[in-house]
């Protein structure tokens, strides 16, 4: 720690902090134009100069990159500094076009604000006009580099945070400017970070042009509804319509967003949104009134329940529901419908958490917070292509890689963007990541790289694990998959010898293979390497949709009540029976797969599907279509006419996430509050629909005055949420476990031990010895960063960047097949034949093609099945 004086205020900061950071620490503002806390200091704008007196000498120096030292006396605002800053601003204005009245950034331009603040009286230098790069043709983002002040923040955020380097300084001296190569239009992640960080109007959001300016926006803070990272959003509205989305720099995500978060929102304004409830009459869905629709649902569920018992009803929830809605839906299904047949995410999307992490460690949740990844020394990615699935978490790995020189170990069936980073790339067939991890564990044990004494204090089951690994060796696994055994040895050394290391898994309905076995192996590895229960380490399982963690917490599963409390636990059940004022069936219900089988054979007759689209996303499309077709009564509650809604008997329009209240719990257990923007569509909030239905079905006591009351009930019944209430949820939310009203949450779990006593090491899967078959192609369902598989297909903006599904192939395979970029190929597999356009890409390795799974028109899930690991296909030129 160092202590210095800034403008007469004594400040103590961490050694290595800059003078600027020290000043910000005590709320003293130093003007900057090229500084952002996410970036490495650059020192280009020279506005942050301060006068520093140290050892009797006074000097001026930039505050942004000079470290604070003991005994410094810093003055931030003297007449001399004001003069210097004024001169600096005059120089910047020399070639900055003064078209401020027509500039998009007017009123919200940092240069304009500083010129005003420093009272620049005149432009004493001759004006100089230069002509630079202008681009009106890129998606979402507009460049007018004539306005650029060369602060370099766009270039740096693109390189240092996004790891993309789409922009660069080009040319030299007075002609230097920021551009792409040969001034082409953007072809990047379209995260919009460059536009959001630009202090002037040089890079801006196209959608604001002619709509309004940033200072006119009416801002509502809420949470992103796409992936499970829970980035906070600020919805900027003009005339009660969203025009601009940004994120606060003070949020947990530090203002970083990806393309979906920043530019994906227009789906809420899609013309295809359902406006009226629909009901099936004479085989066709026709519009009806809310009263008739709700009454029909209540009558039909009521009669099925009366005729063939509550177990002939089932419900499928979603990771898109808020905690409050998921909780009330759970109550509705178990007490009003009276069945435990409830599930979500195909019963697959949460398995790693619930059956992997929970029994071994205690909580069905990632162990650390996402922001800790940047300080890790090694990052092990197991089949997690975060660039596509969780782009903002990928930024953390870029930060670790660039700033901490972390080793990035990618074990994956595809070559991801992160496999280019310093570290290792272990290419395995899809679903075989688990064998590599087990081989790593075996190697660590054989070489004695683990601290057995320390491990014994914290975990049990080492002997059983050792016994179960006896068939493994680095050599057999390596030879089996055609991998150099040294690669696995190095991966194991890198991971276990790092001071801090994280393992990251990404769950999603595109992922094939046994995610439970993989998550168990990951936890085993983290435990024996001592990487659990400390900062910047741990195991992350990143769910697919916004409230993936919340859906698990709220117990949208056949065997679990809210708060991971088992349905067979007498005490837990009676607690909820009291709160819910109803009996709960003690028998475990059916999961999604069993529900589908039971629907096909007629045991389940009525199904309530909320915010989920099984037809397009669950494995084995034909089976799902067949099962849903046999149902006597299917209700679908969604925003759009999804493929599942087309089969329904009643369709209830829901609201967009931006119109919702409630909370989402992100993959780092952060509970954050959604605030509704202006109403867009005609749908009703899910919570209201559950309550109306309950009262129509004779359970009028399932009634809440609002979302806050539901959260209060959650706090009283779910131990990890005990200290949560709406009054406490600020911009950063709260991280569970949050046990009382004073608790500020615990981002790092298991620091003081495990709630289950000692951690339980799991036994390893026997080595199956699967040989990769070289003769046929493999299809790998992947995720595309512009899409999410739920509402992105209805987002005109995302469809503009990525309009259709395609097959990614590597150059060698394409040459072998005699196809070029844009040719059609015919893909034949167990699920029939599809024709796809080919796109050359570095991502697929030889013998594989990658197809994004979220385009419903591709019917990709007709090629998959529950439990299948690989999809052999035949690929021909079409």
């Amino acid at each position: 720690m160092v202590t210095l004086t800034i403008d007469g205020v004594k400040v103590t900061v961490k050694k290595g902090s800059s003078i600027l950071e020290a000043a910000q620490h005590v709320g003293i503002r130093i003007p900057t134009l090229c500084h952002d806390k996410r970036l490495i200091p650059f020192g280009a704008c020279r506005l942050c100069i301060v006068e520093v007196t140290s050892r009797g000498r006074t000097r001026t120096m930039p505050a942004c990159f000079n470290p604070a030292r003991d005994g410094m006396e810093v003055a931030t605002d003297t007449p001399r500094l004001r003069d210097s800053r004024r001169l600096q601003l005059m120089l910047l204005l020399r070639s900055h076009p003064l078209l401020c009245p027509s500039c998009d950034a007017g009123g919200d331009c940092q240069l304009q604000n500083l010129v005003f603040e420093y009272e620049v009286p005149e432009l004493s230098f001759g004006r100089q006009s230069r002509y630079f790069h202008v681009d009106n043709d890129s998606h979402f983002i507009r460049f007018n580099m004539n306005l650029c002040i060369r602060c370099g923040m766009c270039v740096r955020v693109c390189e240092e945070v996004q790891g993309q380097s789409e922009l660069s300084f080009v040319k030299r001296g007075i002609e230097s400017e920021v551009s792409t190569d040969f001034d082409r239009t953007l072809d990047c992640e379209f995260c919009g970070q460059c536009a959001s960080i630009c202090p002037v109007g040089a890079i801006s959001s196209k959608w604001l042009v002619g709509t309004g300016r940033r200072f006119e926006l009416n801002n509502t803070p809420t949470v992103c509804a796409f992936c499970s990272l829970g980035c906070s959003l600020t919805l900027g509205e003009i005339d009660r319509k969203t025009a601009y989305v940004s994120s606060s720099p003070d949020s947990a995500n530090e203002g970083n967003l990806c393309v979906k978060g920043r530019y994906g929102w227009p789906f809420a304004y899609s013309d295809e949104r359902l406006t009226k409830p629909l009901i099936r009459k004479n085989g066709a869905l026709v519009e009806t009134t809310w009263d008739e629709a709700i009454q029909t649902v209540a009558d039909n569920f009521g009669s099925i329940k009366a005729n063939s018992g509550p177990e002939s009803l089932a419900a499928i929830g979603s990771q898109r529901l808020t905690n409050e809605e998921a909780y009330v839906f759970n109550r509705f299904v178990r007490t009003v419908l009276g069945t435990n047949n409830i599930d979500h995410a195909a019963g697959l999307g949460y398995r790693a958490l619930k059956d992997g992490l929970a029994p071994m460690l205690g909580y069905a949740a990632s162990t650390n917070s996402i922001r800790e990844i940047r300080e890790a020394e090694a990052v092990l990615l197991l089949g997690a292509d975060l660039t596509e699935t969780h782009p903002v978490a990928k930024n953390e790995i870029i930060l670790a890689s660039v700033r901490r020189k972390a080793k990035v170990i990618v074990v994956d069936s595809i070559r991801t963007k992160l496999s280019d980073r310093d570290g290792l790339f272990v290419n395995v067939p899809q679903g075989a990541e688990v064998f590599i991890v087990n081989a790593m564990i075996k190697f660590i044990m054989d070489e004695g790289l683990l601290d057995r004494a320390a491990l014994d204090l914290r975990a049990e089951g080492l002997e059983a694990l050792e016994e179960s690994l006896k068939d493994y060796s680095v050599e057999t696994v390596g030879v089996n998959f055609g991998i150099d055994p040294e690669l696995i040895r190095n991966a194991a050394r890198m991971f276990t010898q790092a001071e801090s290391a994280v393992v990251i898994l990404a769950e999603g309905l595109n992922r094939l293979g046994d995610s439970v076995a993989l998550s168990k192996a990951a936890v085993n590895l983290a435990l024996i390497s001592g990487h659990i229960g400390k900062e910047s380490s741990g195991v992350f399982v990143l769910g697919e949709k916004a409230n993936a963690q919340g859906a698990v917490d709220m117990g949208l599963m056949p065997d679990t009540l809210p708060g991971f409390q088992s349905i067979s636990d007498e005490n837990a059940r009676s607690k909820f029976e009291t709160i819910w004022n109803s009996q709960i069936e003690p028998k475990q219900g059916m999961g999604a797969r069993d529900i589908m089988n039971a629907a096909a054979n007629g045991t389940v007759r009525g199904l309530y599907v909320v915010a989920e689209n099984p037809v397009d996303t669950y494995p084995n499309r034909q089976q799902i279509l067949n099962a849903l077709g046999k149902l006597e009564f299917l209700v679908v509650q969604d925003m759009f006419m999804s493929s599942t809604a087309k089969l329904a008997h009643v369709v209830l329009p829901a609201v967009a996430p931006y119109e919702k209240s409630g909370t989402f719990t992100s993959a780092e257990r952060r509970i954050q509050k959604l605030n509704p923007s202006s109403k867009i569509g005609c749908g009703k909030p899910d919570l209201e629909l559950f309550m109306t239905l309950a009262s129509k079905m004779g359970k009028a006591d399932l009634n809440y005055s609002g979302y806050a009351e539901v959260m209060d009930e959650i706090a009283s019944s779910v131990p990890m949420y005990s200290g949560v209430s709406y009054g406490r949820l600020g911009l950063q939310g709260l991280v569970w476990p949050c046990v009382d009203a004073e608790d500020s949450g615990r981002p790092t779990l298991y620091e003081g031990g495990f709630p289950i006593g000692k951690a339980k090491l799991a036994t390893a899967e026997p080595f199956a010895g699967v040989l990769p078959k070289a003769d046929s192609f493999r299809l790998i369902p992947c995720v595309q960063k512009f899409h999410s598989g739920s509402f992105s297909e209805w987002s005109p903006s995302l469809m503009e960047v990525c309009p259709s599904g395609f097959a990614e192939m590597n150059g060698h395979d394409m040459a072998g097949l005699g196809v070029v970029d844009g040719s059609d190929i015919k893909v034949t597999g167990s699920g029939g034949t599809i024709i796809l356009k080919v796109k050359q890409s570095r991502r697929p390795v030889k013998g594989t093609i990658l197809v994004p799974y979220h385009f419903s028109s591709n019917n990709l899930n007709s090629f998959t099945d529950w439990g299948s690991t690989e999809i052999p296909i035949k690929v021909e030129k079409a």
Partner: protein
Amino acid sequence: MQERDAILKRKVQDSAEAIPPEKLLLLEPIIEKYQGSSSYLIPALKEAQEMFGYLPMEVQRKLSMGLNIPAPHIYGVVTFYSYFTITKRGRHTIRLCLGTACYVKGSKQILEIINKEVGINVGETSKDGRFTLEAVRCLGACGLAPVMMIGEDTHGNITPSATLNILEGYQ
């Protein structure tokens, strides 16, 4: 707004003729040599320029793919160093000094005569591919002012009429 941008939009240089894909295969040895070590970008670009004479878009893209260095970064380096060029150069490079001494002794008139007779301005290449004209600040031979270099040869005390005779010697 659109109009304003159109006014400010600067004329973009026409790109040189495309290099056929089979010729790009010549870059493979360079890529192989420097793969995985992104700090060797400049030697790689130097060798590529020695091979093609210039570094057009196709060459930069190919190197970007092969060396796994972002294309905008390569473009930034190429446009930063005056040694690299993205347009095809003439067989002979004229480096005319426009430094103080040469300027006073009349190098401006020499520039004008080259403009007029060869038809190229500073930074341009003649249509027949013979000359590329560059202006330099000082060649360190002010005693010979005005001075120009053609390729590796230095010519001093030149006059506008002598210039054309000198150029005759370079075909």
